[in-house]
């Protein structure tokens, strides 16, 4: 019984919200407030979704976009981690790159697209670079916050036990920073996902962004909406998977802000 009540409490309110939106959408279409071209009905969108699912073109586009996101995200994470670690273990190294990082942090990645196309062409490198630029900074800032904000009192405990710099880093600073690092990764992943769609709309012949743009050019608003829904769903799914993994990793340690 308790279990049933829990599921009811957890899933009932969100389902009501989704149902309300679908009903509103349906009613607007039914009353023909907008033309079917501007806002196709839920049934039409569902039908397109079904066709794209069966033909496999949806999976192909999703797969390509996800692969690009993972590649750019992984590179950004590794670099953000290394630079963050440098700042924690060798604080004197910080000033050498900190201002450059802060400069580029304030430059929107999309404004660099013209340059990136000029330098890297319209191939995969440009898209990887855009994802890198979008996800690197939130991760870097959170990693640095986690590493440099380590409680001095805990570091002294390691010092008393004769810890080397490396031991202090791996046994105190890194675990202490894990919550901040994971928050940064989650934000970075969200940013990557937004950036890839924009990048694919500008310079690509595959992927979800391209699919949406192509559908718009073909006047297939239903396909555009399918694309938007899929982006939202994939983004939500990756975020949930991430939250689940974080919950597992930080389990029992202390209260974390993840649900």
């Amino acid at each position, binding site marked *: 019984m308790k279990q049933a009540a829990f599921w009811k409490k957890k899933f009932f309110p969100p389902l009501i919200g989704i149902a309300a939106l679908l009903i509103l959408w349906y009613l607007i279409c039914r009353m023909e407030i907008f033309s079917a071209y501007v806002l196709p009905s839920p049934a039409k969108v569902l039908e397109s979704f079904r066709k794209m699912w069966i033909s496999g073109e949806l999976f192909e586009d999703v797969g390509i976009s996800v692969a690009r996101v993972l590649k750019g995200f992984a590179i950004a994470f590794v670099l953000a981690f290394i630079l963050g670690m440098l700042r924690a273990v060798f604080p004197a190294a910080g000033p050498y790159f900190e201002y450059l990082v802060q400069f580029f942090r304030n430059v929107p990645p999309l404004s660099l697209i013209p340059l990136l196309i000029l330098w890297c062409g319209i191939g995969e490198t440009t898209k990887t670079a855009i994802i890198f630029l979008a996800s690197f900074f939130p991760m870097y800032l959170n990693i640095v916050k986690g590493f440099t904000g380590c409680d001095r*009192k*805990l570091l*002294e*405990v390691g*010092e*008393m*036990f004769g810890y080397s710099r490396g031991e202090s880093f791996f*046994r*105190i600073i890194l*675990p*202490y920073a*894990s919550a901040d690092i994971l928050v940064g990764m989650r934000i970075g992943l969200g940013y990557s996902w937004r950036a890839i769609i924009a990048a694919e709309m500008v310079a690509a012949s595959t992927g979800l962004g391209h699919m949406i743009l192509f559908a718009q050019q073909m006047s297939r608003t239903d396909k555009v909406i399918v694309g938007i829904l899929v982006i939202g769903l994939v983004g939500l799914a990756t975020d949930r998977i991430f939250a689940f993994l974080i919950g597992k990793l*930080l389990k*029992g*340690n*202390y*209260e974390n802000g993840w649900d």
Partner: protein
Amino acid sequence: MAGIEIRDLKKSYEVDGRQLPVLKGIDLTIPEGRITVVLGRSGCGKTTLLRLVGGLEAPDSGEIRFGASHRTAFVFQEPRLMPWLDVTRNILFGLRGREAEPGLVKDIIETVGLSGFEKAYPAQLSGGMQQRTALARALAYRPSLILMDEPFAALDHFTREQMQQELIRVQETENCSILFVTHSIDEALLLGHRIVIIDQGQVERLYDLEDEGRQRDLLEDRFIHIKREIVAELKGQ
């Protein structure tokens, strides 16, 4: 020479552009295998002395000479446990790979009365249990010298009493040296082989309680007498 020799130890801190002397030339011998209690009012420099002996800070001048090779553990005023480690792993925190003998943790957990909480995280423990874990972590390190900075200050009367007895027992079995800082006169009288009164950054007086045995009744006349003397000393009379 055994124990620790402290000679003319000075330390000051810069506060708002001015040098604030905290230790003004401490001379002290800390005997080996004994509990030396440093007693004084808040802000008299007790903690600074402990941090200098522990090597967490460097003195402005003077020297601290250690007798034989030493292995030092520090029990801080706060437990300072790693929140992401359970009790067992917190206790093993000071040890590297193969240093942990099998059964060591079990014995220590029993000693400090934490049986059944081996897998608990610090956030799930009471303040007293956290402090006991911190003591266990220091003991697991098998130190020859334990520095303790008012470790029982945050505990209730009964837990504190129990921990004090435990400390006396552990010191006797391990025969380690303990430098114990407190502002509680009763605690000093109960634990110390030797009591060092520090006031305004200088050693004011030493009390040698070597002959008093380990089970002390502080309501006995001679302890009441010493307590009166110490109170007068600290009040500056």
